[in-house]
């Protein structure tokens, strides 16, 4: 038992010493002549050797013995400290650490003898006065001997954090006294005890809140005075106890010099690590949580960020790269910056990579700023390292860094300047146990919203509630500085509403950030902000999404803390573009399609605001009324030597009802190579180019659905429906041309409609299927030339279609084209791997027609028997009748 105690003491002490040793060795390499440092290292190794001898840990004793010999030689000036020797000593330290772990676990050494290392150590100890040959094998070190090249600059930089060690004048005597005094003024405390204290203080804070509330009601002078004192003491106590859990970030940083040293020698780089703000304190749980992300970022910076010495010289930078760590407090948060002066993130390479992996679309990429491009590195599966090294570049990492930091309520951002370096900024809260929260109420129930998610509060009264809230179907939207903010009513989300529906006279909107999206949560009342103590929910509450925990309010009542992400998901405000993973809860027809398109806005018939993709529009014409003629009872106009048939929005020729009798008629001309049709409208409003979010298919004929365009709700024209209603023969086909039959398998009715329009304009015969079963039924009934399958069909529908089609001899060669959902884009390689003929973005109409045209051509070549002669390509087939 006694022995165990002894061993435990030994482990604690040695682990502490070794942590310091790592750092000191790295420093020593930079300042090889620093006698104080050397003495300190020597002492640690010496003590370690002695204690291990006493405790009979012979492996450690043996290893440390040789290390001590070498260090002794260096100390006595018998030899110079070479990087090789430093590596050797560090290697020994590693082995000591491994052995210590073994001792901790089993109470004895592992039994491994490390002959190789011992042999190398003793060899090195023998060959003492041969520094030159010892230099040569050190592979990583570039010709300039590091001591000379690197010694001067680091002095100042490294000074602050090494001060306690380096500034000791008379090594042995002085430091003994010093360490004694430190030991006297600090004690070790079990972390469990601190956690318990923290909990108790949490209770006390709550009790204090309650007392204060009572006091305010009772108006008793002495009670008020007492409770004021209680208030102050509690606050101080809370601060004090929270401080006991605080650790300087240096605890994590300490091991980084070693990491950087090892990496730079591995990569043949010279990197100087500077640290500023190592004393910045953070809650222990947070320290734990950022340890790995920090190390990862530093490794990344060394591996990818900072260039090799030659490249740096060529770029006109000093051969030695700088890696700067900075930590500081700012408004209840801790900021950590990791900055390197390396090559920066290559935006173009990131872009190319993201495109090739299908993470972003081409048109998106074009519009992204350098900063946005740089932030792509946080996406899962992303790595731009040209080659995979043992250090980094396996495509896992930065996304994990981001998730880990976000898990503790932090944020991470990357700034990069080409050629000048990369800075990664992390912002994390000081503590997790007590957080500021916004108290809101709805239907007499109170809830707390963590302030970190809060963006702003909006209050709408009177007619504003009507004017500024717009509805698209059941989805309310608020116009916030020109942008549409989806709204969720908290009472409805929590199923507290009495079903009365409607919008109340006063709306309190809490604007929240959930991941990268914003939404407005409508509550009855916004009460106030409070420091709240977060209490976990028992396991009975697991499985109810929407709550992050609970807390006790000043009046002693329990209030639930809302999980903003969960609420957002429940309310569906995040549903758009996030189909993956939650695909099965919502596969109804009102799926959403995003696109950035040029749209022509116009007014026609009973519609105030209609839009049609500009790509479909050939010309805009103003036609004087007197030029209108009638042919076969239909309005036509002579246009460029041909007759242009005119239709109204409803497909009928409502010329008379349109506009002033004297004013010219506004006509939108739609055309492909052979056909033209004019649509009579009331007024051309505008042409806009923007990201368009279309929602909900429409049941009105001639309308595909609604979108928010130019900040207003706008209906999107179903051109195909208008043309066919107009019955002008556009879609009639001449006999000798076989029309390619295309089957669209897509769950959203709206998506199908949009595609159908495009394809029919392009001369294809189109059938639709809403799901895999439907598609397979249609495929077995009719012969198709091509299938377009949406990859986000429920239950892997696209794959099911593919497999089933491939499984049957008659459809074995039927090309199936994968349509990428907007939200989740698979890599082309994966698509091809499945056996799809091609993959297309659902929204890239031009690209789609082009690809289909090519596919059609190749079909022709492969299967000449199938069809007769055809014109240029499938795109331009169509009836000639109209022209005659």
């Amino acid at each position, binding site marked *: 038992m006694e022995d165990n105690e002894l061993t435990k003491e030994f482990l604690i002490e040695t682990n502490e010493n070794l942590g310091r040793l790592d750092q000191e060795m790295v420093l020593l390499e930079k300042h090889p002549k620093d006698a104080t440092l050397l003495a300190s290292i020597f002492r640690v190794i010496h003590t370690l050797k002695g204690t291990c001898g006493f405790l009979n840990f012979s492996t450690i004793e043996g290893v440390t013995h040789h290390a001590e010999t070498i260090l002794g030689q260096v100390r006595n000036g018998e030899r110079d400290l070479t990087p090789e020797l430093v590596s050797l000593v560090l290697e020994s330290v590693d082995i000591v650490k491994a052995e210590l772990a073994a001792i901790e676990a089993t109470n004895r050494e592992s039994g491994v003898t490390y002959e190789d290392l011992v042999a190398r150590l003793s060899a090195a100890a023998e060959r003492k006065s041969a520094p030159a040959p010892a230099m040569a094998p050190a592979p990583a070190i570039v010709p300039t001997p590091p001591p000379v090249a690197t010694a001067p600059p680091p002095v100042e930089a490294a000074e602050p954090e090494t001060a306690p060690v380096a500034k000791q004048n008379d090594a042995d005597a002085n430091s003994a006294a010093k360490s004694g005094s430190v030991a006297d003024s600090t004690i070790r405390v079990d972390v469990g005890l601190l956690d318990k204290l923290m909990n108790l203080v*949490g*209770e006390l804070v*709550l*009790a204090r809140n309650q007392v204060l509330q009572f006091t305010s009601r009772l108006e008793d002078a002495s009670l008020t005075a007492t409770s004021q004192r209680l208030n102050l003491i509690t606050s101080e106590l809370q601060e004090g106890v929270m401080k006991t859990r605080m650790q300087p970030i240096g605890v994590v940083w300490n091991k980084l010099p070693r990491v950087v040293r090892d990496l730079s020698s591995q990569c043949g780089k010279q990197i100087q690590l500077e640290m500023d703000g190592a004393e910045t304190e953070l809650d222990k749980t947070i320290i734990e949580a950022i340890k790995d992300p920090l190390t990862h970022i530093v490794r990344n910076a060394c591996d990818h960020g900072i260039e090799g010495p030659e490249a740096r010289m060529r770029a006109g930078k000093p051969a030695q790269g700088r890696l700067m760590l900075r930590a500081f407090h700012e408004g209840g948060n801790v900021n950590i910056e990791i900055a390197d002066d390396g090559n920066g993130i290559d935006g173009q390479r990131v872009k190319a990579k993201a495109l090739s992996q299908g993470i972003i679309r081409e048109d998106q990429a074009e519009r992204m700023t350098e900063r946005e491009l740089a932030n792509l590195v946080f996406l899962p599966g992303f790595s731009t390292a040209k080659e995979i090294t043992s250090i980094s570049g396996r495509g896992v990492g930065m996304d994990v860094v981001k998730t880990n930091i976000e898990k503790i309520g932090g944020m991470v951002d990357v700034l990069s300047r080409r050629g000048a370096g990369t800075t990664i900024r992390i912002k994390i809260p000081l503590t997790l146990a007590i957080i500021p929260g916004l108290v809101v109420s709805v239907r007499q*129930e109170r809830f707390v919203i963590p302030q970190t998610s809060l963006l702003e509060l909006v209050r709408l009264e009177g007619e504003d509630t009507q004017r500024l809230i717009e509805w698209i179907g059941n989805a309310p939207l608020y116009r916030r500085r020109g942008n549409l903010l989806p709204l969720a009513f908290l009472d409805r989300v*929590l*199923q*507290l509403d009495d079903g009365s529906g409607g919008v109340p006279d006063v709306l309190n909107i809490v604007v929240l950030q959930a991941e990268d999206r914003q939404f407005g949560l409508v509550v009855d009342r916004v009460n106030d902000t409070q420091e709240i103590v977060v*209490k976990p*929910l*028992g*396991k*009975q*509450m697991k*499985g*109810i*999404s*929407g*709550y992050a925990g*609970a807390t*006790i309010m000043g009046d*002693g*009542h*329990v*209030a*639930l803390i809302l999980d903003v992400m969960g609420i957002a998901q429940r309310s569906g405000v995040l549903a758009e573009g996030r189909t993956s993973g939650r695909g099965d809860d919502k596969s109804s027809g009102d799926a959403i399609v995003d696109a950035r398109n040029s749209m022509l806005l116009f007014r026609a018939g009973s519609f105030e605001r209609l839009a049609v993709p500009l790509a479909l529009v050939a010309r805009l014409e103003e036609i004087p009324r007197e030029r209108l003629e009638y042919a076969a009872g239909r309005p036509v106009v002579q246009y460029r030597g041909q007759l242009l048939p005119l239709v109204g929005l409803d497909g009928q020729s409502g010329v008379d009802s349109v506009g002033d009798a004297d004013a010219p008629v506004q006509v939108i001309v739609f055309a492909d190579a052979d056909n033209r049709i004019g649509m009579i409208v009331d007024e051309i409003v505008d042409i806009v180019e923007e990201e368009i979010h279309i929602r909900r298919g429409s049941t009105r004929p001639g309308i595909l659905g609604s979108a928010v365009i130019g900040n207003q709700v706008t209906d999107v024209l179903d051109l195909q429906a208008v043309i066919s209603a107009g019955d002008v023969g556009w879609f009639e086909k001449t006999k000798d041309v076989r029309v390619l039959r295309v089957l669209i398998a897509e769950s959203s009715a709206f998506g199908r409609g949009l595609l159908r329009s495009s394809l029919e304009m392009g001369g294809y015969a189109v059938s639709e299927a809403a799901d895999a079963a439907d598609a397979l039924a249609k495929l077995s009934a009719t012969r198709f030339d091509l299938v377009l399958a949406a990859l986000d069909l429920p239950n892997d529908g696209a794959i099911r279609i593919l497999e089933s089609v491939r499984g049957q001899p008659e459809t074995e060669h039927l090309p199936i084209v994968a349509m990428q959902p907007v939200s989740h884009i698979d890599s082309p390689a994966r698509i091809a791997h499945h056996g799809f003929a091609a993959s297309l973005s659902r929204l890239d109409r031009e690209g789609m027609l082009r690809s289909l045209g090519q596919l059609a051509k190749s079909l022709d070549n492969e299967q000449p028997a199938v069809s007769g002669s055809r014109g240029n390509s499938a795109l331009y087939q169509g009836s000639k009748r109209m022209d005659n």
Partner: protein
Amino acid sequence: MTAPDTTTGLNRQFATFFMRDLFFGIEVHKVQEVLRSQEMTRVPLAPAVLRGLINLRGQIVAAIDMRQRLSLGPRTADQEPMNMIVRAEDGAVSLLVDEIGDVIDVVSESYEPVPETMAPHLKQLVEGVYKLDGRLLLVLDTERTLQLQ
């Protein structure tokens, strides 16, 4: 469904409560305390069996409505449930019961396994039965009771 140690003939102590006309017992060491009706914060979206959360001296405790849990139908408006706070692995949980009974000693000889004919929704939460004078004591399986789907 652990049977009590019959070989030694040791007696067990139960804290008891009533649910309608049924008489239940929980081993006394599992019960932390008994409280009158408490103010409760209801939890929207939670199943009906989870009646709400109460503040037990700074600890947040979920309250399970035993009427719901045992499928015994609702209480009348004037019936205020009592809180029987039981110890669970991750803190305490309150069971809302109709009425609190005494703490009683039972002898192991009077133990019987659960009768086969007992209604299934009761049977799955009852460990066994003690035959007392004039009535039966149903031993509540607290672990199962606290497991909500």
